[in-house]
């Protein structure tokens, strides 16, 4: 075992800079991949924040009784989709109207034409137009309900945007993820290929495949976790600095923790890359 560790560490020294290149490439690839992940997380945070403003307004019939309204409120509150419920009576509606359109408007009319309403704020995760439609369907037949309104077009547009963004995000994540795996494993591959002669000689002197493989594997894992650590530290601190500089970006609390994912990722990629590279070489030896 001590042999494996000794050899793995010596590997970095022996390849003169190749180990450094490998670590650097891993770090750079993971910075790109991890940075993308963080940007995507922020993007989702942004969308979620925008969506939290989605409200359903249920206008109540003037003829609705107090019991009917209470019954409606009870039903709504029982739904998991409903986060908050605000009752706006006729007077408050009039006051709001006047605030928007200037005073004197309603004075000219004998009777307040504005209905009372229930403003429903939705739980995050239930803000798609389908969920909204479901809620509406559930309550629209209630006696108390006169009319239901929500920014239908707006919500649908947002839904579509999220759909496109998700699609692009998945695509980009896949592409960048694949690119990182490709680049890291190739670099590791090249550094091991450069030692093909040594591997061949080891075999000729009686080393088993697993004996040859072990130090390379450990070297790959060490190099990968080193690269991953550099990437993680960089991402963490850049993210922190950016969130301080642009508070509007730090929408997902703890998003920067995702940065630390790069360490096990680098480790896995370094180890796996080494494993594949060494296996390919060993398979082609006599």
């Amino acid at each position, binding site marked *: 075992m001590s042999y494996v560790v000794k050899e793995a560490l010596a590997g970095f020294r022996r*390849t003169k800079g190749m180990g450094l290149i490998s670590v650097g490439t891993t770090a750079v690839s993971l910075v790109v991949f991890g940075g993308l992940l963080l940007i995507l997380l922020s993007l989702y945070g942004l969308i979620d924040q925008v969506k939290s403003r989605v409200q359903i307004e249920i206008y109540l019939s003037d003829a609705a009784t107090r019991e009917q309204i209470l019954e409606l409120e009870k039903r709504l509150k029982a739904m998991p989709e409903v986060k908050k419920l605000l009752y706006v009576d006729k007077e408050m509606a009039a006051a709001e109207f006047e605030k928007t359109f200037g005073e004197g408007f309603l004075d000219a009319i004998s009777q307040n034409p504005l209905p009372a309403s229930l403003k429903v704020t939705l739980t995050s995760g239930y803000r798609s137009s389908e969920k909204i439609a479901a809620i509406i369907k559930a309550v629209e037949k209630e006696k108390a309900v006169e009319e239901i309104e929500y920014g239908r077009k707006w919500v649908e547009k947002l839904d579509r945007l999220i759909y496109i963004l998700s699609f692009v995000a998945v695509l980009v994540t896949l592409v960048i993820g694949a690119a990182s795996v490709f680049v890291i494993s190739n670099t590791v591959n090249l550094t091991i290929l450069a030692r093909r002669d040594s591997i061949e000689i*080891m075999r*000729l002197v009686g080393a088993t495949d697993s004996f040859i493989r072990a130090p390379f594997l450990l070297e790959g894992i060490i190099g990968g976790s080193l690269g991953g650590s550099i990437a993680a530290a960089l991402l963490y601190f850049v993210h922190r600095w950016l969130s301080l500089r642009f508070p509007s970006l730090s929408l997902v609390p703890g998003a920067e923790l995702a940065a630390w994912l790069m360490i096990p990722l680098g480790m896995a990629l370094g180890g796996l890359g080494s494993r594949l590279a060494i296996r390919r070489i060993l398979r082609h030896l*006599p």
Partner: protein
Amino acid sequence: MIQMHHVYKTVGNTTVLEDVSLQVEKGEFVFLLGPSGAGKSTVLRLIHFDERPTQGWVRLEDYNSSTIKSRHIPLLRRRVGMIFQDFKLLRDRNIFDNVAFALEVTGAKKALMKRRVLQTLTLVGLGHLRNMMPVQLSGGEQQRVSIARALVNQPFALLADEPLGDLDKEAASDILQLLRDLNHQGTTVLMATHDTELMETLPYRCLMIEKGKIF
């Protein structure tokens, strides 16, 4: 015991060996003689299982080329020392580590390993160069490192491919004496060489090979 049974070796269109049969008994010292390009190295590589015969089979103790499993080849190589014509040193580690590697693969204890490596390096006259890298050594010195690595395991058989080629007269006779001593202690030695004088002065059996055929 080393045995080749009607072995053919062809690579592409070239026939390297043609119907080679030979047998070396346990404890024997045998010369494999032939001009350049005769096929001496190929014979040794076949016995070391670095290559497989195209036809026929090679046997080394209980290992037979037609039945051996890949994972048993390393075990075989640990028990047979090979002195390579082109030395095949690991150039990314020093002389000590090069020789030690042959013991390392067997899982030898560290203390034992150190003692045995230094002992063997001294035997070939290179104790003082143990911390050098292979590129820093002269041709003859590199050859002796390769010899030391082949011996360090105390193999039961020794395959020596032109082991004295880069050595001056004195060093060569020292190494030859070393191999003869080992042979006296029971090690089988098969030595490929083109030095016909050597065989004339020594009382050992001689296999002649030319253009891939044994005579």
